[in-house]
């Protein structure tokens, strides 16, 4: 899956979780500070990502650094999709 599709999948998942349209975010957008994700919304986001990019992730396996920004999350998703493949 190319980076553009991954970003689009993450934005769709974020739209579901935040209950507002999310698109064309700068890649440096901070998930905690700018989008106000918390532990509850991270669980929802991971479930939504199963729908949009088909990745299965357990929250306990995440590191804080994976959730720094939209870009780091996209990198994480990309790496784990490749692992699955």
């Amino acid at each position, binding site marked *: 899956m190319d980076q553009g599709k991954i970003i689009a999948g993450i934005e769709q998942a974020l739209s579901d979780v935040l*209950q507002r349209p999310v698109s064309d975010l700068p890649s440096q957008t901070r998930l*905690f*500070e700018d989008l*106000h*994700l*918390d*532990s*509850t919304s*991270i*669980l*929802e986001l991971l*479930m939504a990502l*199963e729908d949009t990019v088909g990745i*299965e992730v*357990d*929250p*306990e396996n*995440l*590191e*804080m650094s994976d*959730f720094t920004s939209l870009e780091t999350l996209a990198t994480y998703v990309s790496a784990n999709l490749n692992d699955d493949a």
Partner: protein
Amino acid sequence: MDTSYLRTLKSKLLGTPAGRLVFVCNFEAENWWAEGYVGLPAPRFSAPTSVVGRMEELGVLLAGADDVLILKHPLDPGYREYLSGLGLPVPSVLVPENVRPDRSTTEDVLDSPELLRQLSALGAEGAHLLPMGTTVLEQKLTDRCGLPLAVPDAATFARVNSKIYGRRLTAAVGLRGIPGDCCESRDELAAVLRRRRPALTGGTRMVVKDAYGVSGKGLLLLDRPETADRLLRMVDRRAERTGDDRLHVVVEEWQDKSHDLNYQLTVAGDGGITLDFVKRAITENGVHKGHLMPVALTAGQRAELEHAAELVGGRLYDDGYTGIVGVDAILTTADVLYPVLEINARLNMSSYQGSVTEHCQPPGLVAFARHYPLRLPAPVGFDELAGALAPVLHRDGPERFIITCFGTVNADADRPPPFDGRLYALLVAEDQAGLTALDDAARAALAHLAPREH
């Protein structure tokens, strides 16, 4: 002289209205009670913020002039002067000499010999420690310095604050409970989700809540069977990985609300129970935003809440609990009153409003205690904040806007800008329209300070 609210609280907890309390407002208590319990799958890290910790400053307006409040950081001198200028009592503030940002305030106290010595002296003079809720840390504090607790021990608090305990209590005393189930293992969750599957398929939404989740946190909304399947797969993978199949959650049918309500009761040391107040809780997406008071209830609804308070308080007393209890209730769009959505046997947000409303909300007026989210490019001094809020702070007539917590404004000022802060305030007006106008004016004033949609 303490407020009637505080004197009554002291009478119930200490047996005398003139007792002296040392407050520590440990808003992170649930995290400690949750130790040893397994909740929903969650990351091992949490959103980096100091705002929740700084909410301890809300204790300033509950404590009396002769009481003591322990804070991680000193009270801002400008804010102290502002409170004194309003004629509000300000307690003595004690600050640990050894403070670390990654610790709770009680942990800092435990590492501060000079403060421990002062607390020991206060204990010898007859003062009592009143935490928001006792955890192992406050237990350790009282053991270390001999300052006795005004409320029960950590084990009692942990036992009675589980949502599983709350559901079982509600059923045991015969109150109308939210349709749902308690789960203490992976297999119990699987069985519940299997049994509820037809309802989920039919459009009934369910919510899974951690036994020790706080308002709006540690919960997952299930709106279709696929989400339930995903949750169970995650729980299964974790159980496989850890070899531990325990799970402490409640699963409840989602209720479409007309109103969220919050009422407070106090269980006195002699077992006496009083319903202190009922407020309307304002929430957004399950997250607490504020309280409106008074709330309009029918005589039947009020009687039902009074009855519920008696039953809930009586059972808590039988189970060893004394002190303040906040209960969340819900009035559904179908006009059904569920008198117990959640029991929080500890001080609640609304508990901290009791003295300031007595000072600032004359009979017949309405009040709204709320917080304003801020997004700030740089720290804001109290004078700058007060200057921005001048249009609401200095009003003619009965309207009042009182800043009830300043420490949360700049709590995250050490983070890369822009950072988020919160301003807590109490708004008082003659009627709901007046409150709305005052609220709008406050938001407009804050927008000049922090350009952000609220």
